[in-house]
């Protein structure tokens, strides 16, 4: 947890457009909740354009790896195929806005793609790619990662979901404060 406390985002640091992008990510998390999926929402922004938006589809696809971030990565591939552009350059200039800290799998995927930056809401105490195991220690990413914006809201959505479906496995206490 120590390593992560230094990247807690201060609300004042965020531009209006970053707050706006995060708001959109939240709408996808809410959509997930309505569809009985773990409420995590995510958007990818490239050159001020939203090139991918998504949420968890684990139950729908019966594939436990279909997290919001992975779905967004596929969206970017499709976006690039449509426009006949190289996805590598796009990924390297993408900002990821996601309501929950990416898990170990997604963090590894995003780091491998050399994503420019990640802004997340609440910590992921069950699978987090910083909180549970700091993937950056083994992959030495170029990605800038910040979290903590609207963390309480993001966590409240998760609690709402686990309350309804799986009371035995709630994500426990949020360790960092939303500023």
């Amino acid at each position, binding site marked *: 947890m120590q390593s992560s406390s230094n990247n807690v985002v201060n609300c004042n640091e965020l531009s209006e457009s970053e707050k706006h992008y995060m708001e959109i990510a939240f709408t996808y998390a809410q959509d997930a909740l309505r569809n009985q999926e773990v409420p995590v929402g995510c958007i990818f922004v490239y050159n001020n354009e939203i090139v991918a938006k998504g949420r968890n589809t684990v139950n729908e696809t019966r*594939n436990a790896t279909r997290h919001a971030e*992975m779905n967004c990565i*596929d969206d970017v591939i499709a976006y690039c195929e449509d426009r006949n552009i190289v996805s590598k350059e796009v990924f390297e200039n993408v900002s990821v806005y996601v309501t929950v800290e990416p898990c*170990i799998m997604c963090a590894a*995927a995003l780091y491998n793609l050399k994503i420019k930056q990640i802004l997340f809401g609440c910590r992921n105490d069950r699978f987090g790619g910083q909180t549970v195991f700091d993937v950056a220690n083994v992959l030495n990413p170029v990605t800038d990662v910040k979290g903590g914006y609207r963390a309480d809201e993001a966590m409240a959505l998760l609690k709402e979901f686990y309350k309804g479906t799986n009371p035995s496995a709630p994500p426990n206490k949020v360790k960092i404060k939303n500023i």
Partner: protein
Amino acid sequence: MIPSKKRKLDSETDDYISDCIKAVLPDDLSKDTPLVEVYVDEVSDRRNISKAVVAINSAFPVQELLHLKRVRNGKLLLFPKSVCELSEVHQFLMKKGFDTSLLTNNVEVALVAKLPPKLKNQYEKVNKLWPCNFHSNKYLERLVTNNLFDENEMQLHKICMKIAIDVAQYAGNKYNSKNVGAIVFDPKLKSVVAIGYDCTNKNPCKHATMVAIDNVAVTQNGGAWDKREEVIVNGLNTSGLPKDFEFLKDKYAKTISFGCRLSDHTDNKCRVSEESSYLCTNYYAYVTHEPCVMCAMALVHSRISRVFFGVKSRIGGLCTLCKTQTIKDLNHHYEVFCGLLEQECINL
């Protein structure tokens, strides 16, 4: 390493070169038992030893050191060194109501096992330092000495890896991709549930393992990348096997089956019966190359039970960069074995 006996495999498997397999162990099995410093003092009159043991156990029970005997060669284990300074030990004992006249007041620091040893060789080391309780676990002993599998099981593991190698070669040639192959296997049915191959030339996340996991989802009426109709062959659902890999069925028909158990379609929601599968629960994965961190965690999410791989990888997340499968705080862990048909995998 397990050098298996004379190679006597059937025709489709006679090109095996290497036959070693090694468990990738969590640190608490691969390393010595951690040690901790404690205070000890001599019992002044040896006839009072049992009295002193009873007294110290009631005055100072040390919950985290219950695996240790309280006395050794007339010396009494008092408490961890972290509790107080050496000069304050007797004062401290008195405060706890212990009769310090039982001791000689020659307090020393001793190194003892911090945790209960898990393996016989760990036990033998720490027991020399200070006597310690130990319950041997036959399964773990076989795991660490690489004696878990008998000859028949080893042969089955090799056939599974051979199929993963075939997948890697076929896909590599046909789709001009990296020669990496994966299969997901149901050990109860002895049946290949799904296959996967590297598609990173299309999508950087489509590693062979990720593709195999998605093909398992296809057999459960899901899947994100590929949608295929359910195909029932000999009472098994073979939709985890893309059409162009059907040649595998013919090649390995003698030794192994293909497909997974059928799920119940009692209603539109496709309720899954108790018998049918949930994600990769109870399945094994065989991958030609050590899965990366992303794939290693994908296998945790998918609740795989064992992973076998051939050759280590520079970006590997099972033993090279880290051991994702042993991260304590995760809700699922799986066993990992490496070196299966290693040379054949290197040759890919």
